[in-house]
């Protein structure tokens, strides 16, 4: 097992990492060559994030060696990693929004001119140079960071890393918050950086992207490295990769079942907000209505306007032919309208609370006994019964109702969030990007839950910018572009290409 380690920029040998109750990495070994793009894939909880954190010095491995450019290193913290030339591009970009692009790029440079003042001119040229490396030539360095798109901010971080002599870039699901065009831009930039000899590790749930850009694909499962696929000569097949990731055969990504469709439950008429215009649609019991639009189309604002988080300028909402006027989500919940937001970490979950409390929080009125609404005692026994039934139904892993929700993987967090809709009599469930940022296996499970809700006679509103998900799951689709409905169709009369075409108008 003697390897020539000279052309390897990073070698990991037998890395172990244990957390209380879980072993996240079980003897993972990697060789990464200079200038290659390595795709790292695996389900949630497979150990991808842990591995990245070990490389970046956020976590220390319990056992194992890290060899960087031929020398064994102990990476103490991210600063140390950066000094070595290892940089991390996170999923959610943490940059101060109120500084300019130039300031963001040159933070930490301390380029000083006369009288110890910052040499603006030099910094400006430096910033321009860095921007052109990542193809952001059209961005004005005096622009505020807050005015840039997520994608541009990500590239800004990359530019900054390159400017600080990065040799290895680690991307942690950089495209999960981007639209198709922006994602492509980022991938192109990765190819460009590869030509400059920069080594890159790319983690993504979007298998197609990994296949399109990676030289080698490494598959993790349950903390083991289960496969290394050469993707340079011949492109790998997505099915093949997914099979390795989940070790079971999923034929149906979209477990759509045609159900008998009932009466109209939700009717929205001429909804208008700051960004939306004249949105009208209806949902029937047992029906899945897909609302499709690209990023910036305004799709995510539709459910928020209906339940009263975003103010409505005009518009009428009817539930079962009765006019309703929700001023807050609590009114909507009382009427049987549940909203599962797209940003589960900020708007969905209570990270400090255990899974069981996250599940029942919207329906405590059902589990109470007593006189008044707020001061009544929670019937923990019936609550527990419901929770354990739901945990079994959604296949929560690990099936521990008392574990704090922040210690679950993304897919399991999403299952908890969706099971909220099962705790009370619900008429309509609006799900915004229910499968974003979770692994393939969990995506299918979440979609099955949607079908399950429809089976109970619920009307489902599925809001997504994933055209395959919309096409694969919906009965009817409306397409939104620039805040307006541009197309409405039954799913039999359309195809994914057509939907995309309308959405990008």
């Amino acid at each position, binding site marked *: 097992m003697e390897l020539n380690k000279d052309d390897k920029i990073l070698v990991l040998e037998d890395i172990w990492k244990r957390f*209380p109750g879980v072993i996240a990495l079980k003897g993972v070994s990697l060789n990464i060559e200079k200038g290659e793009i390595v795709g790292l894939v695996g389900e949630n909880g497979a150990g991808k994030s842990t591995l990245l954190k070990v490389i970046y010095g956020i976590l220390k491995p319990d056992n194992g060696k890290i060899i960087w450019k031929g020398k064994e290193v102990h990476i103490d913290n991210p600063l140390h990693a950066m000094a070595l030339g290892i940089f991390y591009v996170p999923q959610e970009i943490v940059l101060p929004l109120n500084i300019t692009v130039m300031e963001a790029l040159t933070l930490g440079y301390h380029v000083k001119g006369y009288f110890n003042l910052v040499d603006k001119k030099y910094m400006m040229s430096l910033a321009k140079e860095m921007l052109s490396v990542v193809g952001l030539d059209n961005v004005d360095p005096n622009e505020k960071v807050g005015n840039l798109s997520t994608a541009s901010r990500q590239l800004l971080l990359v530019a900054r890393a390159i400017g600080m002599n990065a040799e290895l870039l680690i991307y942690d699901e950089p495209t999960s918050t981007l639209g198709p065009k922006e994602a492509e831009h980022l991938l192109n930039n990765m190819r460009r950086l590869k030509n400059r000899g920069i080594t890159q590790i790319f983690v993504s749930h979007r298998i197609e992207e990994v296949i399109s850009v990676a030289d080698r694909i490494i598959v993790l499962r349950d903390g083991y490295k289960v496969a290394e696929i050469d993707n340079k000569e011949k492109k790998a097949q997505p099915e093949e990769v997914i099979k390795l990731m989940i070790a079971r055969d999923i034929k149906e990504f979209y477990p759509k079942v045609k159900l008998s469709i009932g009466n109209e439950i939700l009717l929205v008429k001429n909804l208008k907000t700051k960004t939306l215009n004249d949105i009208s649609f209806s949902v029937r019991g047992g029906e899945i209505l897909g609302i499709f639009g690209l990023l910036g189309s305004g799709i995510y604002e539709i459910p928020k306007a209906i339940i009263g988080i975003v103010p409505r300028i005009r518009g009428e909402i009817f539930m079962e032919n009765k006019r309703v006027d929700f001023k*807050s*989500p609590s009114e909507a919940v009382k009427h049987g309208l549940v909203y599962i937001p797209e940003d589960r970490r*900020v708007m969905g979950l209570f990270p400090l609370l255990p899974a069981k409390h996250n599940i029942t929080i919207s329906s*405590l009125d059902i589990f*109470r006994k007593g006189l008044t609404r707020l001061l009544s005692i929670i019937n923990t026994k019936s609550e527990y019964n419901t929770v354990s039934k739901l945990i079994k139904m959604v296949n929560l892993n690990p099936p521990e109702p008392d574990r704090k929700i922040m210690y679950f993987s993304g897919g399991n967090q999403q299952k908890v969030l969706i099971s909220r809709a099962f705790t009370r009599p619900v008429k309509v469930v609006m799900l915004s990007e229910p499968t974003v940022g979770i692994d393939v296996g969990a995506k299918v499970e979440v979609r099955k839950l949607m079908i399950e809700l429809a089976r109970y006679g619920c009307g489902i509103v599925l809001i997504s910018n994933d055209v395959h998900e919309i096409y694969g799951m919906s009965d009817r689709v409306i397409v939104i572009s620039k805040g307006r409905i541009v197309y409405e169709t039954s799913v039999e009369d359309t195809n994914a290409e057509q939907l995309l075409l309308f959405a990008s108008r």
Partner: protein
Amino acid sequence: MEKSEKSQQQSQTATAPLILIRSPELGTLIAVLGLSLIIGFVNPRFWLPSNWLTIMRWFAGFALLAMGESMVLIIGGIDLSVGSMASLSSMIFAYLITEMSWDTWQAFIVTMVIAILVGLYHAAVVVRFSPPLPTTVPAFIVTLGSLILLRGIAIGMTKGFPIKIYDESKIAFLASSQGIALLVTIAGIITLLIQLRTVVGRYMYAIGGSLEAARVAGIPIHKARAFAFIYSSILASITGMLYAGLVASGYADIATGQELYAIASCAIAGVSLAGGEGNAISAILGALLISIVRNGIVLMGVSPYWQDVGTALILVIAVIVDLTRRTLFAKV
């Protein structure tokens, strides 16, 4: 196989001492016991029943204020007005009994109603500006205003003079050990019950964990937060009346500065100042620790003027331990 066993052991030995840090309640309890032993060793008078009566009188007030404060801290807010609320309540209570010759229970209820109104006012301002602001911003400002305002009213009522309660039969129960013990016990049970078992309790933890997620989940965030502020004011006013009973008078400075002890009691024993964590047990243990420290400083022959320094030291140590705990466990 061999390797995994070895490291299993490693991780166990590593976590054993950390359990103390993991549970701030346990840590505080150990600090209470340890300090008691040390103080008792230096000055055996510490263990005399009469001394414990003194400690318990301190403790009763701190514990009541801290339990109310814990409610507001759990929702992610802060109540800086509890000291002034207590002072004002002692004045109103004494005024109603002495000047108006009301019965004790009448004065008790009216004083409490005034506290409820103050709590409602706090809640109204907080709810008006939050969201979009986090709860703590308007909470800090409005209760800071009340800290000054309520004490100002208390001083203004008699131009700063105390109101002596001459008819001590009216406050005999409030001043008796049994009365105090009963009040604190009942308040403790009710507070804990609300926090751990009721709907509004569950709501409060959720709100403190994430206001935005609570709103989206359909929680009545305004009502639940109003409840916390009102509860805090009520317990503060009960504390004030208890103090009035103990010293047989109402006095505008009777609880001045005690909001800080209330917040400290909570923070020491695990009520997170960031919201969403901790309960009345933490508040009670923290109040006990502070009472013992203040008593111990006197018993160990240090001038009572150094009491605040001792309290502050304990607080800083506790908060550092708390932050260590967070960095160790919260972000794995």
